[in-house]
Structures are given as C-alpha cells and as structure tokens.
C-alpha cells in the first residue's frame, strides 16, 4: 500500500499487516498495480533474465557462505535466503553513480553492485573489517551497528544534492532497525533537507528472535509519511515489485522530490546468522508457509510462462552460480592473514608518533621471538 500523511477520524484506517503492493502472485501470475506498473513496463527480456540470474547467484553465494562457515572457513555468516528479490531487485534499478549503504545481510545488493568473490567473504572470515573498495562498487562497508548507516546515506545524499548531481543514496536496513533513534533521525534530516535518499527496509519478520510486532504494532511503511516521506509497502518476494518501487523512489530523488521509503515485506528463511538457532523461537509452519512464496520460484514461473526463460537458460544460470560459488570458495580458502603489524596501519590517515612507536615496539617484541 502507499502511504502519505493524512488526516482521518480517530477510529479509521489502520491497514492490515498483510496488505502489500505486488505485480507477481506467489504462483508467478502477473497482476496489475497502478502504482507499480508504469515502472516496469519497459523491462526487456534481457533485463528480466539478469534479474533472475542475480537472484539465483545470490542464493548460491549465500549457500556457499553457510557451507564455508560450517567448514570452519568463515567465523560467521548472515544468510539472506528468501530476501533475494528485494536485494537484487532494488540494486538492479540503480545507476552506477548511486551509492548504497548496506547492512551485514545485503549480499545480493553487493552482487548487484559488482562485488568480487573475495568481497563477500573476507570480513566474515575475520581477515578484514571490510573487504572491498567502496569506490569500485559504490557501496559503503557493511554496517553492523544497527541503523547507523541510515544517517550516512542521508548525509551522502545531502552532498550529492550540493554537487548538483542526480546520484542517489540508498540505505538498507531491517525491520528491527526501525526502532533505532538513528533511523528516525535520518528521516527527519532527509525530509528537512529533501535529500535524494531511498530507505529500503527489508521487513523479514524477525530481528534475531524478536518478531516484527515487538518493533511495530502497525505497518512500518506507515511511519515515513509522518515525517513527510512518501512510502510504499510492497511484496518483498516479488522481484518485479521491488524493481518498480525502487525505480519510483529513485526517480523521485533524481527529480529533486526528496526521500522515499520502501517497506519490502519478506522473510528470513534461514537463521539470523550461522550462530543462531531459530527453532528456539519460531514455528516450522511459518517457515514452510513462506517457502510457498519463494521469490526465485515466483519469478521463474513468470518468466517461463512469458517464454523468457527455458530449461537451457536455467541451466546456464545454474552453471554461472556454481562458478561464482567456486570462486568465492577459492577466494576464501586461499585467503592469507596479513602481517600482525599491519593492524597498526590506517588508524589515522596522517602520521601519529605515539602509534608509530607502539607499532615499532610491537615489531621489536615479535622479532624477539625469532632470535
């Protein structure tokens, strides 16, 4: 549903938690939506195949992350299975100059931005805090402090605005994050300065063990309008809806109409991270029900029905996915830990006598063992 700030009687109109905008039904059949339709009418078969392909790649990559963790190659992994549509769909809508501020779970967004195999895993392995060069893929380091990146995105957008560019910043975060002060302050700043920023909230129903109802008794998308930010509540397992909503938001931003908010209603099929045991807090039935709304199967059904994708196309994608997984695995297993004294580097950009001394002392100390 779409939300804006409105006046109403006191008793009126809290929308049902379930109402979302969509273009694809769970079985893949195409439905009309006046708000979203215009934004995907020009999607070519090629683009649709790319959308599907990146989702499959993301799922495969994610499975590889889980496997690598199980094998002791990674310290941790935050699975994104089930959330491929919102991650890939929104990333696909971006222009190269746009800049994303992801959380730790946005593997599909990084993929959409062109991340390299090592980029996905080195941080989870404990080799680096952040592996990739933010300027190469126009993505900030994954954010672990819940919600903090929403302000960074807003500030970056304020900069883009000052530069007179049409670049847009995108903040990705979860349903749990919406409770944080930072996320709300970001809406205040974005609205006040009409910053070209898009807030993408992946409402995957859970913040670790807490159901979304702990954070919000009413749809999250209903908050932004109160700050003067239009919002859409979409089916986050419908890749077409995700592309469309993102294009709507990006277009607003590029036209100088300011920030937008997207609540993508989706589901975290896996555990919170590989350290988590979701059987402690949720029913298997719930997971099964969401499995019926799988974003990849849904898009596949649609593309097959439209004649855009066939078995051989699917095979090709599966092979690409295996290849990516192999590359990621190789990048992970082949990683070497850097020399200990490098941990003193890049604390400061400019020389720092005190720290240089600490480094020198530690190098001497280590050298003592070699004698």
């Amino acid at each position: 549903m779409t939300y804006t700030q409105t006046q109403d009687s006191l008793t009126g109109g809290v929308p049902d938690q379930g109402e979302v905008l969509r273009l694809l039904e769970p079985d893949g059949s195409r439905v009309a939506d006046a708000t979203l339709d215009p934004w995907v009418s020009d999607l070519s078969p090629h683009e649709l195949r790319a959308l599907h392909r990146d989702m499959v790649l993301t799922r495969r990559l994610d499975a590889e992350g889980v496997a690598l963790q199980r094998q002791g190659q990674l310290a941790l992994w935050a699975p994104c299975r089930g959330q491929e549509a919102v991650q890939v769909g929104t990333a696909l809508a971006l222009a190269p100059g746009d800049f994303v501020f992801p959380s730790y779970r946005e593997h599909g967004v990084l993929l959409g931005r062109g991340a390299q195999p090592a980029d996905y895993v080195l941080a989870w392995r404990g080799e680096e805090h952040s592996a990739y060069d933010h300027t190469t893929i126009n993505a900030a380091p994954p954010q672990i402090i819940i919600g903090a990146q929403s302000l960074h995105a807003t500030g970056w957008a304020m900069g883009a605005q000052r530069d007179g560019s049409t670049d847009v910043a995108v903040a990705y975060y979860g349903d749990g994050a919406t409770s944080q002060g930072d996320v709300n302050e970001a809406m205040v700043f974005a609205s006040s300065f009409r910053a070209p920023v898009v807030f993408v909230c992946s409402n995957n129903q859970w913040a670790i063990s807490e159901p979304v109802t702990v954070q919000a008794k009413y749809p999250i998308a209903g908050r932004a309008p109160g700050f003067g930010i239009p919002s859409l509540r979409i089916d986050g397992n419908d890749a077409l809806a995700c592309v469309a909503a993102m294009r709507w938001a990006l277009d607003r931003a590029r036209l100088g109409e300011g920030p937008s908010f997207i609540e993508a209603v989706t589901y975290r099929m896996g555990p919170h991270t590989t350290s988590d045991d979701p059987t402690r807090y949720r029913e298997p039935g719930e997971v099964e029900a969401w499995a019926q709304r799988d974003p990849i199967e849904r898009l596949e059904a649609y593309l097959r029905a439209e004649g855009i994708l066939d078995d051989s196309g699917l095979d090709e994608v599966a092979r690409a996915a295996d290849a990516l997984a192999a590359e990621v695995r190789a990048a992970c297993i082949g990683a070497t830990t850097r020399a200990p004294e490098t941990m003193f580097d890049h604390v400061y950009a400019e020389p720092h006598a005190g720290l240089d001394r600490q480094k020198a002392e530690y190098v001497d100390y280590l050298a003592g063992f070699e004698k």
Partner: protein
Amino acid sequence: MTALTLGAAINAGLSKALENDDKVLLMGEDIGKLGGVFRVTDGLQQRFGAQRVVDTPLAEAGIVGTAVGLALRGYRPVVEIQFDGFVYPAFDQIVCQVAKLHYRSNGRIRMPLVIRIPWAGGVGAAEHHSESPEAYFVHTAGLRVVAASNPQDAYVMLRQAVASDDPVIFFEPKRLYHSKGEVDLDADLADAPPMHLARVAREGTDATIVTYGAQVRTALDAALAAEDEGVSLEVIDLRSLSPIDMNTVAASVRKTGRVVVTHEAAREAGVGAELVASITEQCFHYLETPPQRVTGHDIPYPPSKLEKHHVPDLDRILFAVDRVLEREEGVLR
C-alpha cells in the same frame, strides 16, 4: 557448591534476584524466548513471564531510558546490552541520566539499575563485538563499574549489583562464559566480600600484576609460568573498576615494589592509566622500577584473525614482568 559455567552462574544470580524481589525485572534484546544470544537468560522468561523478562524493541537508548523510568517508579531493572559494542547508543542516557539522577535530585531519586554487558574479545567475533568500553564508565562519576572473572564472583556480584541502590555497569567477560567453576548458590550475600573489594587471586613476592575480567586468567597463567623460572608473582583481581580498591592494590605494591597492569582496552587514558597514576601517587617511595602497562594497542579492535596480537597474552605479560624485574635473562625467554 555446584560446578557452573560463568554464564550459568549469572543465570542463577538473575533467577535468584527475580525470585527474591518482585520489583526486579530484566530487559533487553532477545533475552526472552531465545534466552539471550549467550543464553545467559535462558529459561527465565518461561519461569517469570514476559512482564518480568522483557524482549524490548531494538534500541539501546530506549532500553536504558525506559529502565530509568521504571526505576523512578520503584522497579529495579536489570538491562542487557547484547554486545559491548552496542552500548554506545545508550551512552547519553547512561552518562547524563543514569549516572546523574541521584546527584541531580540531591539523593531523593535512586537508580538501582544494573546494565549487564557481555564484554571484550578473544572469541573470533565480528567488528563491534569485542569492545572494552569500561574506561568510559570508570571516568563517569555516579556509576559503579564491576567485572567478574569467575563463576562464583559472577553469581555473587550480580546479586550484589541488583541489591545496590546505585547504578552498576556489570561487565561479563564473554570468553569466559563457558568456563566452569564452583559456585556456592546458597551463599549468604551478607557473608560475601563486598562488590567493591579487590581480591588477591594469587599471592607472590617479586612483583604484582593488577588486572580484571578475563585477563585475570591470563595473569594467573603468567604467574604459573613465572614460578617455573623462580619468580613469584602476586595477582590482583580488581573486581571493581569504580571504585578501585586501592588499599588492596597499594598493599601489594608496597610489598613487591614492582607492578604490571594489564587489560584488553586501549592504553591511552584507560583504567591502566588510572592504576599507574594512583599507584605512583600512593606507593612512590616503594616502587623499585616504573610500573608497566600491558594493554590493547591504541587501535580499533582489529579483525579477529589478528586479535591474538591485540589482546595481551601470557607472553606480553611476562615480557613486562621482565622489565619491572630488570631481568636480563627474562622469564619470557
């Protein structure tokens, strides 16, 4: 006596506190059904209900700020911050409200709040999950700051913290959560050593190691190793970081004349700085050599593959022991 892990000992302490006083309640992220990401609150919501073991929205300022209100209403909230690195969003509420309300109200308002923080590194965790923020709180007047180093202390000090009418920042060394020790679950709080006293964890005569939290174990290991070299180290477990029990520390330093202070947190203006300064002020004429600090480097916590070079280990402590002992042929090698 019962053999319990440090995590289980805290669970037992929380359970006892909930049992003994209706006004005690627990708040935090994922502490209910899940029992906390470290399972420290395991089973407590089931036992005491969702009104007393409360899963809160994901907002640390909110958790601490509402706990302040609950305290004003007569409750004794025990708040869990999920990891050390997530306490900062609540910093304003802790420093300006929790720490100051008793003072601000000329003693009329009490803040019997406990803020539990799974703490520090060495467990291969992701960024922001291995922080040692204790110095920030030690520098803040109005707070009490304690750190448990073993299950028995964890159990007793948790209960003492809940019983205290002052706000207590309660640090739980996460790399010891699974380490076991004997706990006297029926211990009378009145007989237990008060929370603010340090403990001589090991007696020795040649030099003193002052430390706290998980580093106590490392220091004891160092003392064992030194013993093999004929060096007798005294190890002090501070237990309380604010106030610091300088009587116990100074007595030891006056005896040994040599001291190594160690912690995981960064050195600059850390708790070690306070210790060295206070020791120098109070034991100047007893010191044979300058005190040594063995601390985390003045860097953000590094990626976990490098953490063993950051968290002071036995070797780095012995290296410093050599220096305070002015040994050419070191204990270390």
